[in-house]
């Protein structure tokens, strides 16, 4: 009898715990474990019924004004009433189809890039489109003009952008813009033949990684106008974006460096032996492999960036967090601050959590492919 036959014949005799067995094994295996289980159950008993009642069962959904709510449970009427402000900021109400169109394009484009049912070639092309063309299209639709050419009728200045849309513009725009800079910095830091280039890159990276983002945003807000020639005007959005890009490029550089270092030395030597020039070697052999290795790291940087964009509310921009909190200062809706935090927090959480799950799945896939 071979092992396979043995397993096949006796697999029904293997001990497989049922529900009761599972409980005894995982929850009640020792006195200490029993104590832990009941302690955990008690904590859950304290937290869950109260929060569920507040959030769902006792909460207020119907109605239009604060008269329809009481303070004893969550007032989702408030979120319904201020929904547009929280999602779109001060974007003109009659032109909301524009941010909606951008969001729709974003979802379609990203699904082409992210879903692995599609062929790699298609995904790569979609990725290129999202990286190089989409930012311009999105700006043209949201703002109404591109490079001074008016495309849509009213021009909506960036000061009017806000809410979730602004948060997405800052984080997606930030990651797209800081990507090339980050790759250049990582390549520069690895450069062994040119010490000047190497040390300039190291200093640049270490400087931005050593300071908090909030000081960078302050710098972009109050110091940048002093350092530029008289008459150069930047809107708030571009200034914040410059700060975010410089800051986040240093982090991307470190992620990419990890990928460059993880490549086996043979890859560099093989490229050298083919007499490839530096850029040919980098573009055709090194970067495609290194970048593939660090996609999870890049997604994690993106998550950090998405969370960090909430800091622009300190320099007075109306991103998702600031719009949600700002809505509670409406005199008709005083006192519904927890609802605003729960809603904004849930949106951030949904975005970050799904991105991190995606990155974890990718990590698993990449580790088995190698």
């Amino acid at each position, binding site marked *: 009898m071979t092992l396979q036959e043995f397993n096949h014949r006796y697999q029904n005799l293997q001990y497989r715990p049922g529900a009761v067995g599972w409980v005894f094994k995982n929850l009640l295996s020792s006195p200490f474990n029993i104590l832990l289980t009941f302690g955990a159950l008690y904590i859950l008993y304290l937290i869950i019924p109260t929060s569920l009642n507040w959030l769902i069962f006792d909460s207020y959904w119907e109605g239009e004004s604060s008269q329809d709510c009481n303070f004893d449970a969550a007032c989702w009427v408030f979120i319904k009433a201020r929904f547009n402000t929280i999602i779109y900021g001060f974007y003109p109400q009659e032109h909301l189809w524009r941010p909606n169109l951008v969001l729709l394009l974003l979802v379609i484009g990203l699904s082409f890039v992210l879903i692995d049912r599609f062929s790699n070639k298609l995904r790569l092309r979609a990725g290129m489109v999202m990286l190089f063309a989409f930012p311009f299209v999105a700006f043209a639709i949201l703002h109404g003009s591109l490079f001074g050419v008016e495309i849509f009728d009213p021009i909506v200045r960036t000061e009017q952008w806000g809410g979730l849309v602004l948060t997405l513009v800052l984080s997606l725009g930030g990651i797209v813009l800081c990507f090339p800079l980050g790759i250049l910095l990582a390549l520069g830091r690895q450069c062994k033949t040119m010490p000047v280039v190497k040390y300039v890159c190291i200093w640049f990276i270490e400087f931005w990684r*050593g300071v*908090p983002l909030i000081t960078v945003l302050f710098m972009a807000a109050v110091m940048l106008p002093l350092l530029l020639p008289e008459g150069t005007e930047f809107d708030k959005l571009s200034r914040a974006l410059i700060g975010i890009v410089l800051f986040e490029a240093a982090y991307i550089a470190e992620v990419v460096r990890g990928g460059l270092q993880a490549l086996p030395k043979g890859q560099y030597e093989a490229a050298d032996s083919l007499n490839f020039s530096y850029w040919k070697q980098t573009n055709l052999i090194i970067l495609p492999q290194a970048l593939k290795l660090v996609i999870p790291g890049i997604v994690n940087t993106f*998550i950090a960036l998405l969370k960090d964009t909430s800091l622009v509310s300190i320099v007075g921009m109306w991103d998702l967090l600031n719009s949600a909190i700002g809505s509670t200062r409406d005199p008709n809706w005083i006192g519904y*601050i927890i609802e605003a935090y729960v809603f904004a927090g849930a949106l951030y959480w949904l975005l970050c959590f799904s991105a991190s799950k995606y990155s974890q799945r990718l990590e698993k896939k990449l580790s088995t492919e190698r």
Partner: protein
Amino acid sequence: MFSSLKFRQYAIQIFLLLALVIFFLFIANNAEENMAARNMTAGFGFLEEKAGFPILFSPFIEYNAAINSYFDTFLIGFGNTVLVSILGIITATIVGLIFGVARLSQNWLVAKIASVYVEVFRNIPLLLQITFWYFAIMIPLLPSPRQSFTLGGDWFVMNNRGFYVPEVTGDGLSTLLYALLFAFVLIYFFVKWAKKKQAESGTVLPKFWLSLLILIIVPTIAVVFSSGNLELVFPEKGRFAWRGGWVVIPELAALWLALTIYTGTFIAENIRGGILAVSKGQTEAALALGLSRSQTLRLVVIPQALRVIIPPQTSQYLNLTKNSSLAAAVGYPDLVSVFAGTALNQVGRAIEIISMTMLVYLTLSLTISICMNIYNSRMKLRER
């Protein structure tokens, strides 16, 4: 010659240097022109001027707006940043340790609760959490000083001005601190001696319990036999507010709580990863050698796990220190909030103030990372 690799490399480097020099000259020139146009002067002379604005919380330096200078506000902000960073690092490490171990627990329920905690709180922006604890919880829900919540008489007082506990004071305090320092030195040499003895003769001394004994006995003797006395100052109800005792203002409490909860999730993940990285064979081998469970943990598992844990832990401590600058959102007077906020608004020296602030964070970051690197190299596996 022009196409040779060496020449091109030199050309690129010289070009980069030149570009940098020109860039900085350009910026300096612009700054000079812009400041001249706005009637501003450069320089750090303003640091000696009187600040003239109140600061909410200054536990280390007695602050008086009419007397103290901008430089003092800088020092106070710096002290407050260091204070909240150290407090946060301690509590976040404890929370992270508990939840990191709990995620690996045999108990399904405990492991699930721990992973829900980690997944929820690390995916919500820290700023949202800080402002949530402050604006949505502490400000609306804490009672006014008149209706303070007290515990055990005056041992713990809670109201919207802060959380009060009794303060240890008296002239015996410095004696106590010196005695503690002396006890630590004593313990260091004792442990060294005990290890040497173990290596020579194999006698194992109860190092931990004897060290604890030294730590308790030495300061007690010092305080009892010295002339100084120690006393507890309880928070006292005044006409408008509570006075005396140690106080944690709500701004600090919200910041501290949020930093702890947020950074705790990342530390929990580090610790879980570190423990998982020690292969099971190590534990089994140690048990086979006859080490006890606690010895296995102490001598085999933890030292190896620490090697994996320390590098990411360093960057978490650095992140916490940098993230403490979000204090500006709730008005806790840290460096950014006081110096790069209020002081900057008053004197408008953007370049000087922002540079000083950034320099402080750079120094803090570099110091922490150097200390951790030294520690790391001492813990590192010595490969032969």
